[in-house]
């Protein structure tokens, strides 16, 4: 995993843990556009995304003391919180919400290229290279699962093959992915 060597945001976290609102504000200014983008990507709804964005910064406020700069950059850590909270919200909409989004697979297809290009510039290129080495449908299934929090069952409904097949694609993909990331 990529670790930012000069993570300029890292010094803010101990201050936030100590109750410094100004430090949270600085973090907000540096990260809110990224985190709002993550919420919007997952929820496709502006109001819900703003709701979740608020929860994300309240979570950061409470959990700042657990941030470990040896494990991840602040941006990675905060983005992961945003992704998890947005997925929680998506799931709270109920199973129907997932079933309704059948068309989104095609939108996701277009997004992959842009993401991969962006990522190629950074240290996170490795994950994208490794994802790119998977066969297309497995890569697509993993990305869709990640951004939409859909279960194997929902993926199978969307992608047509039987449940067991989707499950074995992803499990094989995860195994390859780890091998590639650690190579």
């Amino acid at each position, binding site marked *: 995993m*990529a670790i930012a060597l000069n993570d300029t945001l890292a010094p803010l976290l101990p201050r936030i843990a100590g109750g410094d609102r100004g430090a949270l504000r600085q973090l907000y200014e540096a990260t809110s*556009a990224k985190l709002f983008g993550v919420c919007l990507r997952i929820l496709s709804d502006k109001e819900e995304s703003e709701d979740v964005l608020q929860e994300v910064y309240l979570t950061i406020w409470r959990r700042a003391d657990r941030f470990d700069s040896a494990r991840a950059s602040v941006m990675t850590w905060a*983005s*992961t919180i945003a992704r998890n909270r947005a997925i929680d919200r998506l799931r709270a909409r109920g199973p129907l919400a997932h079933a309704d989004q059948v068309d989104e697979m095609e939108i996701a297809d277009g997004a992959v290229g842009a993401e991969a290009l962006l990522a190629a510039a950074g240290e996170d290129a490795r994950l994208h290279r490794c994802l790119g080495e998977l066969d297309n449908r497995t890569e697509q299934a993993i990305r869709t699962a990640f951004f939409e929090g859909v279960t194997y069952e929902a993926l199978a409904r969307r992608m047509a093959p039987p449940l067991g097949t989707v499950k074995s694609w992803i499990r094989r993909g995860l*195994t390859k992915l*780890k091998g590639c990331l650690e190579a």
Partner: protein
Amino acid sequence: MSEGPLLSESELLAAEHALGVLTARERADAEARMAREPAFAAEVESWRMRFAPMVETVEPVPAPGEAWARIERRLPANDNSNNRVLVKRLRFWRGTTVGSLGLAAASLAAAVMLGNQPPVVIQPPEPEPLLNVSMGPDGAQPLFIASYDPLRKTLIVTSLQPQGSDPLHVYQLWLIPSDGKPRAVGFVDPGKSKSIQMPQEFTPLAGAGAALAVSIEAPGGSTTEKGPQGPIAAAGKLAQI
């Protein structure tokens, strides 16, 4: 690309949980397992970090202008340090030693949701108001909610886990008043609600500010009066809404 080394069933499950492909029931089981097994929790955390770069490549979109003001209004006084004290006490009562990895995972799992507490409203004392608490791992949705009626000395506790999840363990409920010593008050079944009569000797201790916690125990519950033996799945403080 090479196939890479085969992953164990446990690591595949950790990866699947981090990716989000498990059903609600399987997710609840995985969360409970994370609370019990620091090594499993660390595997899930590693997979979350492996997947994280996907999230980072999303295009930024400026947040609505008024968003910061709303966040600032909702900021509670920072009680991170109080959380740590409570978790430390609980760990002390568990009487187990864990390595630094275990500590990190345990603090994740045992985190207290104080920050999510609604603000305490000062009210005239006439009818004793209900005390409420929502308990969950920090930053996640609550796993248990409870409401205590000081007049009837009754605690109503609801598990938000899927019914029948984690059948190999029991979930034991503890009252932790200001002296920091946990008192066992009963058990909660996943996915169910129950009403528990607060034992007479504990009623003076069950006031605002006392904490409730749920530990994951082997069937029969903790065998010591002193406190939980298993990991803490959730905790929170009683407060008036």
